[in-house]
């Protein structure tokens, strides 16, 4: 294995379990994330209150809720991006297949290689070509073998459904692509490091309907290999793409269930009010 440098040093129980798979009875998949009593403060302001939940693997979980409800904070806690705010502080634990991501001796950059992220605003690196953008995560994590880099580049671009559009333009700047293509390039960049989870923070909110549709189709394809958590403001989008939905309000996880259930028969009054557009 030449690529050990970016492979996760921690064991991955999910992959181990799958290895012997005797096609007969699938044991129930362990959850990807186990979040226990997670609270987050920014300075004195508490942004998240005592969230306890599981996020299943190889499914799409949508997080909905009004602005400032803590959904982005929750998402960022899943790969420790919340730490970029210097005044942030957390209590409780977040485990990914058993490993405590917030533990003191867990390296944030290793967490982020396991849990990739796509942002609201597409942000290809302006100094890099399309190809360089895709492999930058591998290259700057120590992979030098050109053959491996090229192979992963093509694989990632194919996964992001971008290969056919850019295969002849890999040396053009990443910024030369259209908005929707840029966002798919960012998805390719995130999957190139082969994470286990993909977090998406309103990945389509800046895109036109056609580009949005492409991103949504893409999430359905990626679901086969990745656990996906997607924050969205768009309720139709949540109902279209996700298997499970979480509703956050005022920093609390109000309701969590099967997406169909949530949208047709929400258990909580607040969820119903939000989904039917009475506030938010």
């Amino acid at each position, binding site marked *: 294995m030449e690529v050990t440098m970016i492979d996760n040093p921690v064991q991955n129980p999910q992959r181990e379990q799958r290895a012997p798979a005797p096609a007969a009875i699938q044991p129930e998949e362990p959850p990807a994330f186990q979040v226990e009593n997670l609270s987050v403060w920014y300075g004195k302001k508490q942004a998240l209150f005592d969230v306890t939940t599981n996020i299943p693997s190889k499914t799409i979980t949508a997080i909905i809720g009004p602005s400032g409800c803590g959904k982005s904070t929750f998402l960022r806690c899943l790969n420790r991006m919340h730490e970029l705010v210097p005044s942030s502080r957390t209590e409780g634990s977040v485990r990914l297949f058993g490993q405590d991501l917030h533990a003191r001796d867990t390296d944030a950059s290793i967490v982020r290689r396991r849990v*990739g992220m796509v942002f609201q605003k597409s942000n290809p690196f302006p100094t890099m070509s399309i190809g360089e953008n895709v492999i930058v995560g591998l290259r700057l994590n120590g992979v030098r073998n050109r053959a491996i880099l090229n192979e992963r580049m093509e694989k990632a671009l194919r996964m992001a459904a971008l290969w056919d559009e850019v295969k002849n333009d890999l040396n053009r700047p990443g910024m030369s692509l259209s908005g929707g293509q840029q966002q798919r390039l960012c998805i390719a960049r995130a999957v190139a490091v082969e994470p286990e989870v993909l977090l998406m923070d309103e990945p389509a909110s800046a895109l036109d309907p056609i580009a949005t549709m492409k991103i949504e189709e893409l999430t359905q394809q990626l679901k086969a290999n990745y656990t996906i958590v997607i924050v969205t403001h768009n309720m139709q989008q949540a109902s279209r793409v996700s298997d499970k939905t979480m509703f956050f309000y005022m920093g609390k996880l109000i309701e969590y269930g099967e997406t169909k259930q949530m949208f047709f028969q929400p258990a909580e009054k607040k969820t119903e009010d939000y989904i039917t557009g009475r506030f938010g």
Partner: protein
Amino acid sequence: MAFQSANNHSLRKAFSFLVSVGTFFCAILVIAPLGIVFFHLVDKGASSVNWDFFTKLPKPPMESGGGMANAIAGTLTLLALAAAVGVPIGVLGGVYLSEYGSSRVNWWLRFFGDVLNGVPSIIWGIVVYGLIVKPTRTFSAYAGGVALGFLMLPIIMRTTEEVLYLVPQGYREAGLALGIPRWKVIVHIVMASALGGITTGVLLALARVAGETAPILFTAFGNSFWNHRLSDPIAALPLQIFTYAISPYDDWHRQAWAGALVLVCFTLLVNVTVRFLTRGRTVKV
């Protein structure tokens, strides 16, 4: 009659017009010296800027001809030494301010940076005289380079900080979210995006110190011949201009004018280069 008639209105318009004309003339006055200086230098110095000026050593007094080749080479050498001191320290200081420092520490760093920027350049000459010239018992190119390098530090630090601030936060987040270590994100993504701006800051700082005379006087000292070792005194264009300008010889005066013209053209060239470099970049000064 709360509001006065059209009379008042036209008065206001006239006054407004006068103010705009007045400020325009002040703005012209600000840049007028550049035109006057440049015209004067071309008038007095252009005739002495010739091939010999760039290729020959100075001649002894009363002999005509000769050039400032050693001073031009000396100034370029000093600038290279200054860059070797000022660029790494200044750029890394700017990186600290933009990427690492807390707002309290940054406030003090910026404050002292601004104070340093305001310190008269001759002070740097004296400081380096005490730090390097006295202990080594000789004026040297090294000492001159260090003095100019100190002068560049606060300028480079601030411009670096400012252009790094202009790099959108999204690029840092995207890099970190790929699991790339922070220092690599800063070097390969943030600084790479701001390279045009950082280069601009360095070039402007070089242009700014290229004409400094006072700090050179106490450190590089000047030299009428070629410099062969950096631990020896070295000539510099501004110093040579100074020496020639206060001399009693007409020929030296002409050469001083020519030297001044070359120096101003160098500054102009750097500024034009900077404009060219930063044209159409996403991040600039």
